[in-house]
């Protein structure tokens, strides 16, 4: 029983991570396409990198949502494991060929670069995915329609929040849509640094 619960924990964590990563990537598709272009042999078609970026983001969302709402489907665990193995490959290749370049694994939510910590994180996710491939027999993890829909809604909420936060942090779309968080926003005297990107004048 405890092994089964552990496997389900790994599965849920990975699904939530995939949904978060997919939502954040969708919000910063242009930035993620720049990263994707690094792995294309021919960079003459920028549209290909954008398509690839959109495909990866959409794939993560679909895989995360499906994995979260269908815990009894075993092939989904293998698909998640394959995706995590892909992350390890991308992390290693990125570190070897483009060390220090931003990986944009979580879009604008993360400023991490290709490096050993990134490889470690991808390897950890792969370990979790391996653990998640050993669930109890599918008949023991049956969900009703309401349970599936609830989990799907929760997963989509995670993806949407990641998308909204990524969009706000990446392109600065907060102004005009409401006040900043009064409890967290800080204060800065002018002149302490250069103005940020996008300054028109």
């Amino acid at each position, binding site marked *: 029983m405890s092994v089964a619960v552990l496997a389900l924990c790994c599965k849920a964590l990975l699904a939530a991570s995939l949904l978060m990563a997919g939502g954040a990537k969708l919000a910063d598709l242009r930035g993620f396409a720049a990263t994707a272009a690094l792995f294309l042999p021919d960079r003459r078609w920028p549209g290909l990198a954008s398509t690839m970026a959109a495909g990866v983001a959409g794939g993560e969302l679909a895989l995360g949502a499906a994995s979260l709402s269908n815990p009894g489907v075993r092939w989904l665990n293998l698909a998640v494991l394959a995706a995590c193995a892909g992350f390890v490959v991308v992390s290693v290749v990125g570190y070897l060929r483009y060390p220090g370049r931003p990986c944009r694994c979580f879009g604008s939510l993360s400023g991490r670069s290709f490096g050993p910590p990134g490889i470690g994180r991808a390897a950890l996710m792969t370990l979790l995915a391996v653990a998640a491939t050993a669930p109890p027999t599918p008949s023991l993890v049956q969900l009703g329609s309401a*349970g599936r829909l609830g989990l799907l809604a929760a997963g989509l909420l995670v993806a949407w929040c990641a998308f909204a936060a990524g969009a706000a942090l990446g392109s600065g779309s*907060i102004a005009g849509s409401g006040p900043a968080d009064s409890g967290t*926003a800080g204060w800065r005297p002018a002149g302490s640094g250069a103005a940020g990107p996008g300054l028109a004048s």
Partner: protein
Amino acid sequence: MTILGIVFVGIAALACAAALLAILGIGQLALSGSGAIARDGLARGQVAPAWSLPDADGTLRSSPPGRPFQLIVFGDHSLRSFPSVVAGLRSLRDDPANADLEIVIVTAGDARLSQPALTTLGLDRIPVLTGSRALYARYNVRVMPFVIVVDAAGRVRASSLVNHDWQLAKLRRIAGLPLDSGDAAGVAGRAARQSQAAAV
């Protein structure tokens, strides 16, 4: 639904909650970090974009201002979420020491939509101008309420995200605006006490 199914729903709900908390935490860090805050506004000494905008009554206001200083508040009816800032703006407006200071509120949309709420907050007699997202972008303002102080030459004297009245006061000092009556009285009192001490 099986027992393990129920367990999975609980675990998945916890995982989703943890993911949401992580997103919130990242957002909070990004908003409060110095790097993120330094990205907004204009640098001190820089020439601010010039504009001429109508207020809710149709009167045109412009920047650079006709007065020595202009305090531009980038905000709208959402200022009601910042009562301390509202109080600070009222105080600035009512202080006779601020005769050289023009205060304007620039919204990203139609000023007429925000004017009633701002009047209810007691911010009447402060012109509310119809700005645009493009103008916000030219000032590099992405979060509200944001305050930029410019002088008569249109140069930025201070620029900051403002969530509390004390931030307004500090901004005012940095901008080199005249001391308000309270500060002036305090300075005069301290000077008097110092001279008395020296005499003793």
